[in-house]
């Protein structure tokens, strides 16, 4: 399974045309204690790099952007009552939505794990 990252610190893990989407461990750490996650609606059609949802911590509120275009086919409802899961496991249990990817060629606009790690060093 391949994992890709955006400059805004979202990730997408792709398997059989479905992308699981979340925010990176780096982003979760920077936000601090996460207190609220606004999930996208089931069935919502999203465009790459357009708003997917939002996330709030004690310190700040920020938007989450879709790493790929497609249709939201599943959301992580556990985050509605336990958003701290994102702090505990940002790149696994803290996933936010599954997107049925409209166009896999868009993945070329994203960074691989290695590229993202290099990118973090420049921040």
């Amino acid at each position, binding site marked *: 399974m391949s994992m890709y990252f955006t400059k805004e610190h979202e990730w997408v893990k792709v398997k059989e045309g479905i992308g699981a989407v979340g925010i990176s461990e780096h982003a979760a750490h920077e936000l*601090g*204690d996460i207190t*609220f996650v606004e999930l996208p609606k089931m069935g919502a059609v999203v465009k790459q790099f357009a708003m997917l949802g939002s996330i*709030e911590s004690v310190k700040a*509120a920020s938007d989450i952007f879709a790493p790929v275009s497609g249709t939201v086919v599943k959301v992580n409802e556990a985050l509605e009552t336990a958003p701290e899961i994102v702090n505990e496991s940002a790149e696994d249990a803290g996933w936010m939505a599954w997107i049925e990817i409209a166009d896999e060629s868009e993945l070329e606009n994203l960074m691989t794990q290695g590229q993202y790690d290099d990118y973090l060093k420049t921040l």
Partner: protein
Amino acid sequence: MNDQLQATPICGRHRDLNALMAPFGGWDMPIQYEGIIAEHSWCRTQAALFDICHMGEFLFQGDFEASGLEDVFTFSVKTIPLGRSRYGFLLNEQGGIIDDLIVFRLAEDKVMIVVNAATAPKDFAAITARLHGGEFSDITAATGKLDLQGPLSRYVMVELLGEEIAAIPYFKFITMNILGVEAIVSRTGYTGELGYEIFIPAEKVCELWDLLLTDERVKPAGLGARDVLRLEVGYSLYGSDIDEDTTPLEAGLEGFVNFDKSFIGKEALLRMKQQGVPRKKVAFEVNGRRSPRHHYELCFEGETVGAVTSGVFSPMLGRGIGIGFVKPELTSLGTPLTIRHERVSMEATVCELPFFRDGSVRS
């Protein structure tokens, strides 16, 4: 303005603990160590240690009435009993709040005035301008201040510093020997929990910090947790909720204004009382986990009616809470308000203060 950040004597310790540091009131201060919610929770259940050396301390010695000190604040200084402290305001001519502060009655003719860090220079200038006698000095740099707050703070203080601390009632203080120097231990704080503010000479404050942290019931907490703690119990933050354009009447703090004495700003306040306040502080709970934040709009029936001045996610209530200012007729309990900012919108309901009522502050 001097842009150089000041550092407290504990600064090195914060860096050793890998604290996240940020500027606050002109000082380089710790915002969090392990995390704001963990530190908040530690304070509500154990004992949290805060570096509060940034706050300002002034000393006045002289005749309170002849010097004019008695007329400087919204409360009487001469009637504060020895060993007690009193909270209130320094106002401008328009009744706006120059600062909120606490005066400690140290002796028959001596008080210590504890003020906010960011406002300390203007406070000192304003008080100086109103005095015509007595000795008035700024002892901020020479004074260290640590707050130990939480339901277990009394046990820790008694075991580490002395038995005499056990009997200090709320808003009273004692002078005692700590680490070989004279220190003030006051039963006051900014968290809604049982707790103490300790004033000790700056050269000893780091040693006291280390000593208190030897107790496993004590953990350091930063200004992030302190802000959540104070808002849960409805305390105002100077610069956010109150400022020079806000009067104590608007801020719902009339209880700290004594109209039986003279003070600068009194005429303006009396006029405002007669004409009615144009806006009033309101507290509200959000229907959900979103946080209201400073400057978000408060709306009623589709119209903007005011702004949020403080807001946060309350770990104790499990929802967003906040305070702000609106027209007085919209402050009745149960009034529905909508909070808006860009594309964010949340429903809230006007409620009573404090939001969190079960703190150990008076236990």
